[in-house]
């Protein structure tokens, strides 16, 4: 529990913050048990009866028997099994590339998900059939000449409408730049992405890119569809040129950077990131990309080194705690944790040392402390933990300081099974007395509790606490001793 709030209950019951009240006694959910009991008692009765089938049948996977997805599975499995018996040579069905399920089936973006084919979409002038018979593909093979007469004179508006309706149309008759732009504007007016894109593909083919880019600048919607189209078919180069001519260099940079995700090999990925450094990112993003590159570069070095050390069996730490996964492509904080785990105490000069990583990647004090603490506590290196908080002042006195509340430090230590002796040192450092006591009670740090009550001169509480500890134990004796101390001026 990170946000230890001793006044938790008040907090939740106050009117300002509402949440569920799951008080055990009178809560709603004890009633769940009731309804469960009721269900169970009814069951015995029901099972005596013959279950009638007016109730909809549901297969175990929950699909109503007879639903489409259920039936697909059913007929498929029966086919597959019987097919194999009947015909031994029945070819195994290849596992298809898994179909993307996430995007909508409705729009532009879904139209182009696929490998780009060079030279695709040559012409849309070929018809897909006349309205009445358009559903019959053999019509497609009709010679072009048959359409010629009535293809010629459609206005941009008519053409767009025909495209929307899936009728025969021709774009090639739009020769002049002006005609082409009229057609484009008409398509944009119709808001049908399918049509806009079809027109854009025609323009892309029939206009020089300089002219097309120039015209698109003043046509925002068409431009967005064009960008999207180029993205989907993977025309990276053209896209870069387009962004440049639009002066949208940051978009261009991000888009190029994005490609690193597709590179599996770490060395190639690093080299790719290095090339990205010169791209015109916004100042913030430029820093992040630089860090990304530096990080991967280091991870490659550390990984190679540690792999070798681990397999040679030279270092105890790797023998005792074999590495579970490679450090490549892990986030920086994870890398720092790794470094604090396997490379603690190395000199600042080495790439793998925590101090060097902290400095290079400008890790905040809090993050550094938390990460370091997590790693050292995991290794039960309590001495290192201690050192993390110890500062010396100019007189040579040592003092423990932390950028994070000590109650949180206690939680972290406890989760790593720190012994009570270690825990109580930190519980003692919690400033708020109430919080200190509640933590001490939670983790059974008797000394802390007893001392705190003594310091608060709270005799009553001390007497109560005496009742909780084992009679005759050292804690018990300590309480007895304090209670009989006549020097203390009890407040109660």
């Amino acid at each position: 529990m990170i946000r230890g709030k001793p006044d938790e209950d008040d907090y939740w019951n106050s009117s300002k913050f509402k949440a569920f009240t799951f008080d055990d006694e009178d809560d709603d959910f004890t009633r769940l048990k009731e309804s469960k009991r009721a269900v169970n008692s009814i069951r015995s009765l029901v099972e005596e009866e013959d279950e009638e089938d007016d109730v909809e049948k549901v297969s175990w996977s929950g699909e109503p028997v007879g639903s489409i997805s259920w039936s697909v599975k059913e007929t498929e499995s029966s086919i597959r099994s019987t097919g194999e018996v009947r015909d031994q040579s029945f070819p195994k069905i290849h596992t298809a590339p898994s179909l993307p399920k996430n995007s909508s089936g409705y729009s532009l973006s879904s139209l182009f998900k696929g490998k780009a084919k060079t030279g695709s979409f040559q012409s849309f002038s070929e018809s897909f059939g006349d309205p009445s018979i358009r559903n019959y593909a053999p019509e497609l093979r009709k010679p072009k000449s048959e359409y010629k007469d009535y293809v010629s004179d459609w206005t941009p508006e008519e053409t767009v409408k025909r495209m929307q309706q899936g009728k025969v149309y021709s774009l090639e008759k739009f020769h002049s730049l002006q005609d082409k732009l009229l057609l484009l504007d008409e398509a944009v007016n119709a808001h049908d992405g399918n049509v806009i894109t079809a027109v854009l593909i025609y323009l892309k083919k029939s206009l020089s890119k300089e002219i097309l880019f120039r015209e698109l600048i003043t046509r925002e919607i068409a431009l967005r569809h064009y960008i999207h189209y180029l993205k989907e078919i993977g025309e990276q180069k053209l896209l870069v040129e387009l962004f440049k001519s639009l002066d949208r260099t940051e978009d261009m940079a991000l888009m190029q950077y994005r490609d690193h995700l597709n590179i599996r090999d770490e060395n190639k990925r690093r080299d790719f990131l290095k090339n990205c450094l010169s791209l015109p990112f916004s100042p913030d993003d430029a820093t992040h990309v630089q860090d990304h590159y530096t990080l991967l570069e280091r991870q490659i070095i550390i990984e190679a080194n540690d792999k070798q050390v681990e397999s040679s069996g030279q270092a105890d730490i790797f023998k005792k705690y074999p590495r579970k996964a490679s450090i490549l492509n892990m986030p920086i904080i994870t890398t720092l944790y790794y470094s604090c785990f396997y490379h603690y105490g190395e000199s600042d000069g080495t790439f793998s040392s925590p101090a060097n990583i902290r400095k290079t990647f400008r890790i905040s004090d809090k993050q550094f402390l938390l990460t370091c603490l997590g790693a050292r506590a995991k290794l039960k290196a309590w001495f290192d933990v201690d050192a993390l908080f110890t500062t010396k002042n100019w007189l040579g006195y040592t003092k423990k300081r932390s950028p994070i509340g000590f109650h949180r430090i206690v939680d972290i230590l406890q989760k790593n099974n720190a012994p009570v002796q270690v825990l109580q040192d930190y519980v003692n450092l919690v400033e708020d007395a109430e919080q200190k006591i509640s933590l001490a009670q939670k983790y059974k740090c008797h000394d802390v509790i007893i001392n705190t009550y003594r310091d608060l001169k709270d005799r009553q509480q001390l007497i109560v606490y005496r009742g909780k500890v084992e009679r005759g134990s050292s804690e018990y004796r300590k309480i007895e001793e304090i209670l009989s101390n006549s020097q203390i001026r009890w407040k109660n």
Partner: protein
Amino acid sequence: MSAHLSYGRVNLNILREAARKELREFLDKCGGSKAIVWDEYLTGPFGLIAQYSLLKEHEVEKMFTLKGGRLPAADVKNIIFFVRPRLELMDIIAENVISEDKMHSPRDFHMLFVPRRSMLCEQRLKEQGVLGSFINIDEYILDLIPYDGDLLSMESEGAFRECYLESDQTSLYHTAKGLMTLQALYGTIPQIFGKGECARHVANMMLRMKREFAGSQTQILPVFDSLLLLDRNVDLLTPLATQLTYEGLIDEVYGITNGYVKLPPEKFSAQKKQGEAGKDLPTEPKKMQLNSAEELYAEIRDKNFNGVGAALSKKAKIISAAFEERHSAKTVGEIKQFVSQLPHMQAARSSLANHTSIAELIKDITIRRLLVLCNRGKWIFSLSDTASEAFFDNLTVEQEFMTGVDTDKVNTYIEDCIAQKDPLIKILRLVCMQSVCNNGLKQKLLDYYKREILQTYGYEHMLTLNNLEKTGLLKPQTGTRNNYPTIRKTLKLWMEDANEQNPNDISYVYSGYAPLSIRLTQVLARPGWRSIEEVLKMLPGPHFEERQQLPAGLHKKRQQGENRTTLVFFLGGVTYAEIAALRFLSQMEDGGTEYIIATTKLINGTSWIKSLMDRPEAQAS
């Protein structure tokens, strides 16, 4: 199967029937026995329209999922592909067609594009040299799918991303088309209200389409009195908050897709008959359909989760009592009557059992923790194992933000969550919420969060952060002053005394927060938007009102005290909690308006943020 669609104010079964009719007509075009090859994604949405039995009646003998390679053997005359218009699917189909053994099995190929045919896909088939093999290429227009008695969805997951990030308005075009279909079936909607850029756009397209079809006016008495189009980006806050209704929480925790939820099987195994028990413990998730066809579910779905326990126990008592009646049944007639009611009672009992189990599952999780830290061989520090109050802490922070507490400072809870490496989406939800509630974050604060996120989860997430900034979910504070408090106060977005058990205001769905989108809807009905002009100006996009001329004689004469019917269309998604709030308004005695809800997609904060991420699958756990 579909009776629940016709119980509502508007009989949505008409829409379903229209869709079914079209499907039958298509199937009959391909004479003889058939096998359907499914784009797997479509089986979900189609399940809302038709059962296998309908297909069977039209000689569909086999069904397969679309896969590369050779098609399975099936002794049928026709092979029909049911697919979305996507290029990569075309490549798979081409593979199927090419490897078909023409000597052995001369089968006819047909293609049905859903929801639209695409010239580009056909072009792709042509390049692959298989277009000519298709006897029949058609489209099946499935824009608005009836989801429940008062709910229509386009099931278009990418709509928000497309509209607000990629500026691709195709889904708006389909929305307008869908609304035209709806008007063809239910009459012209006389009044159109809207707020937001996309809403304006859709309204313009509708008006234009109406002009184009001016000749073919439908002579149907209008069922809807008005249409309200709302942009999701007018209210970015609501989906970020954790939904606290029963259905909303099921969605938050397990995710509802196409009306189905998959649940861990353990709690349900006891329901199997004893003879079967022990044979094989189910390891597959238990799949359940959730809609108002189930009486109990219809009763409890929209309740605040705090009221669900009471409702279930009340139901348990009623059912127990009904079963007890068998003892008092003495005469043959009485016994007969008891027996005749048994099937219904058994269904009620199993429904009660299921929901008791689900409520327990949810209770366990909300009490323990909403999100589990996973540790798949990765380096994660073990800071958080027993954070039993995580769910509450999360809610507290959300509520602090929504009430405007310390939204301009680093939030220590968010900091802690990052330090614990909680799931990135959870962090993004909270940071976005803080930004929205503060009308943007101070540059320094924004930079701080961004750095923490990139350092902890990986630098590649700068792409996702950029997307969030482009959609306005995350933004630096500009010179203008934070207007969220004004919006909150004017629209009463925060109600101190939300009553979860017996609600008197929509704010019960988020235990205090009244969804902004629904407040706008509520105010529009009464007293009208003129009363909140100032606030409307603070929210993005124009607001407008349009009237559509009705053919003479079709003007509705409203009876005294008859409610108005309003269709609310959420462009970019709607949450279950928002739907619950609208249903609550419909049921208010003096409400005066009943609502039908339509949307591009049912969303929650997690699925929404995920749709805006670049490479969500590559995210750090």
